[in-house]
């Protein structure tokens, strides 16, 4: 079988073997429901507490400020909808950006149908939120600012600290979707003035179907999923103990290796970017050149279409992703690439390659060679390309 070069780590990651190892006993041995009285449930409860501590430490938060959810999407939905509900008497205005993940954007659209007003901030050509636009957007009835920590497509990291400061100067709650950033870049909720933060396990070599929402003490939001008294009565549902243990382990792992891992990723990422820009004509890099996720590279190749490119890369064992409309169920081209000003047909030919710690320079050389060949071939088939 061909070697697999997995460069779609922003979509999801391989669950680390030691994470799976840590989870296993909680399926068949310590399977007790943590809400029960007997000792079997006590094992589960202890494991959950430990995971919560690990995560809280990673953020400079307090243990009881971490609430487990089923993933980033639930965390985002919860943060926005429950804040909107809890602070309705204060106001009905929420500020977010044009480049958020759909879990934020579609939730905002839902809120718009329910009487809330949303401002979608523009970004500059590098995908950085325009701070002056943020300042202008603030109104007395603004209850929440939600800006993602780092973008999932183009990798741009936002000036979160500055945004947090502005939010707090105005007495506005600040939520950040850190699904792509948690475990990749250092985050401190106090330093950055973050009131709520979403994260998802499978983006940092943890399991799928588990995530958390950090909620600063004092923020008055209630449940999004109503029912049993789990998670201090804020999130109902029998706890996904193996998932929580896995997320704890993944966090521990990501924090312990962060510096070394991301240093290496940055080096390789830049090597990839340099080679592609130099060796493939009519190509641009999307996102900020340096203030970007350590493992993210995103290119647009003119005259070609992303899905075809992905399929051809797949034939060589290379997994990537594209902002092309054709790869998604929605048929809309990436709203992120549109927001940084790309014309439709250029957004179409985009390719996101996101590294992990296992990727080597040789892998990237193989990728670049194949890219050159495939792009040549697709361009020769393209009615847009006249050479």
């Amino acid at each position, binding site marked *: 079988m061909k070697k697999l070069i997995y460069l779609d780590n922003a979509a999801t990651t391989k669950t680390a073997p030691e994470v799976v190892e840590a989870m296993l006993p909680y399926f068949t041995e310590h399977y007790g429901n943590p809400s029960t009285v007997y000792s079997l449930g006590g094992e589960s409860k202890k494991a959950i507490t430990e995971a919560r501590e690990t995560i809280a430490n990673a953020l400079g938060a307090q243990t009881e400020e971490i609430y487990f959810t089923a993933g980033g999407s639930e965390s985002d939905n919860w943060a926005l909808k429950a804040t909107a509900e809890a602070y309705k008497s204060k106001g009905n205005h929420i500020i977010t950006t044009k480049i958020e993940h759909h879990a934020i954007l*579609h939730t905002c659209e839902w809120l718009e149908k329910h009487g809330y007003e949303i401002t979608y901030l523009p970004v500059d050509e590098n995908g950085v939120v325009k701070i002056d636009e943020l300042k202008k957007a603030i109104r007395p009835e603004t209850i929440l600012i939600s800006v993602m920590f780092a973008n999932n497509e183009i990798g741009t990291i936002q000036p979160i600290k500055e945004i947090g400061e502005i939010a707090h100067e105005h007495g506005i709650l600040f939520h950040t979707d850190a699904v792509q950033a948690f475990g990749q870049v250092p985050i401190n909720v106090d330093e950055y003035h973050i009131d709520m933060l979403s994260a998802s396990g499978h983006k940092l070599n943890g399991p799928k179907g588990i995530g958390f929402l950090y909620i600063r003490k004092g923020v008055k939001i209630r449940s999004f999923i109503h029912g049993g008294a789990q998670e201090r009565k804020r999130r109902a549902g029998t706890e996904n103990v193996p998932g929580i243990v896995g997320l704890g382990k993944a966090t521990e792992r990501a924090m312990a290796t962060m510096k070394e891992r991301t240093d290496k990723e940055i080096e390789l990422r830049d090597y990839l970017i340099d080679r592609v820009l130099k060796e493939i004509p009519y190509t641009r890099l999307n996102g900020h050149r340096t203030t970007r996720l350590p493992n993210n590279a995103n290119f647009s190749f003119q*005259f*070609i*279409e992303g*899905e*075809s490119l992905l*399929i051809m890369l797949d*034939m060589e064992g290379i997994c990537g992703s594209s902002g*092309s*409309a*054709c*790869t998604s*169920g*929605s*048929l809309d*081209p990436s709203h992120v690439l549109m927001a940084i000003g790309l014309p*439709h*047909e250029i957004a*179409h030919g985009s390719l996101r390659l996101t590294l992990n710690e296992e990727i080597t320079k040789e892998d990237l050389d193989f990728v670049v060679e194949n890219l050159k060949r495939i792009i040549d071939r697709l361009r*020769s*088939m*393209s*009615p*847009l390309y006249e050479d």
Partner: protein
Amino acid sequence: MYSEKVMDHFQHPRNVGEIENASGVGTVGNAKCGDIMRMYLDIDDNGVIQDCKFKTFGCGAAVATSSMATELVKGKTIQQALEVTNKAVMEALDGLPPVKVHCSLLAEEAIHAALWDYAEKHGIKIEGLKKPKSDIHEGEEEEGEDY
């Protein structure tokens, strides 16, 4: 997600390229996804399609349907070519995923556009051929369940 036939036509597309001094050329764009297809026809004096080539800026399904469509119209009369609908192309490819049905319309419309061009150049009227839209808007929606 694609059938073996689709993958085969995508990997080894038949009839890619251009025909110089073609009898008819049609270019259509898909408003749904922004993809573009150009079809070249070489039609002899008996109205038989002798050659057919294409260029496509589009997804795997677009490439495969272009390729299959050119195969299907080659050797056919103009009237027969009009029967090469997107359904016929899809069937020949053993089907397409629901979200990719619209891609096959590109091929059908590109043939029509090329035939229209041929008819205009030759000052004839082809029975049953309507002026092609520059953009394709229709296409099956998934049942009313999208977000």
